[in-house]
């Protein structure tokens, strides 16, 4: 009996020792990582109002000086330099509808210069206005996924010029918008 018990204990303890030795550390460990990426709507733009300088004239003679009309992008108001005088018409800033990812900031680029129709007057100093924008050349798409910015510019008016009863518009220029 005395000899039997130690053998059993020995066997049990050895089994435990071997078992514990191989199981002391897990053979592997793992970690799972989940990344994230949000696939957003493409940004797009469409024009809703044509940039329109309205009607104006610049008389001739000694009193005439080369003039400009600047159309403010925020309000659409016109202000002049030189001898040009404003007439009626349907002057307005250019307006755009931009759609894209909600709450995204976008940048814009505008041409250095173009010409108006129908008289091919030089148009420069394009300016951009977004009510939600951060700066003069950026806008912000609202929570609903859209923004409605405006574009203004300056038109040069030579002497002896009169739009007559027609509006002087800028129907064609490229407004490029990109996410920032």
């Amino acid at each position, binding site marked *: 009996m005395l000899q039997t018990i130690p053998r059993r*204990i020995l066997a049990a303890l050895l089994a435990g020792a071997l078992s514990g030795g191989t199981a002391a550390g897990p053979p592997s460990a793992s970690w799972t990582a989940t990344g994230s990426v949000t696939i957003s709507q493409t940004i797009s733009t469409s024009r809703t109002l044509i940039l329109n300088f309205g009607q104006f004239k610049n008389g001739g003679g000694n009193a005439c000086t080369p003039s400009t009309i600047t159309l403010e992008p925020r309000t659409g108001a016109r202000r002049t330099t030189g001898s040009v005088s404003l007439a009626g018409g349907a002057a307005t800033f250019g307006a755009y509808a931009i759609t894209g990812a909600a709450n995204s900031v976008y940048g814009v680029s505008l041409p250095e210069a173009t010409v108006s129709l129908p008289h091919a007057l030089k148009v420069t100093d394009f300016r951009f206005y977004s009510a939600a924008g951060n700066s003069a050349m950026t806008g912000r798409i609202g929570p609903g996924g859209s923004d409605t910015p405006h574009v203004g510019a300056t038109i040069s008016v030579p002497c002896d010029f009169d739009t007559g009863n027609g509006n002087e518009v800028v129907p064609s220029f490229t407004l490029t918008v990109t996410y920032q």
Partner: protein
Amino acid sequence: MAMVRAIHVLAAAVSVMFGAAQAGVITIAPSPGVANTPNLGKVVATAISTFRVDAASGIVTETGTAIRIPSSSVTTPQYTVTCTGSGNPCNTSKLVTVTIQANTTSGPAFFAALNVSVASGTLTSGPTGQNTQTVSFIAKSAAPGGTVAVFNVGMDVTIPATPIGSKQTPAYTITTTNN
């Protein structure tokens, strides 16, 4: 009395055996202070495109028509492999194999490939592979609780044509095996 003495002796012997046989425990965890999940932010894709995040630099390059907003570098996830345990478990040569596997290789956004940059550790092989990366280290000199290896993970994130505005959460799993 003889039996009691025998049991004491055996118990002491087994105690020594336990200590000698106890292996180090290899663990892996994100390095402190380093983001453990890659976040590409917002992307716009009109066709299948891929963003490659370089593990070492975090620079993101784009192929295809997609753009990413913003386009700046990201902080790549960094992991630390550690050997822990009582006594001195890692003073013997121990091979640690790390396998990083993309959980899926299809769907609205997935890791088409993975890349690894090893910051520290004694390499024995790798990194090799594409959407499964394997790299092996030697943990021989790691002190108890010491660092076996530190590495960063980069990835190719493929964006197929997907419904707009959707947030996707591709995943990968890192497994360490000590041999």
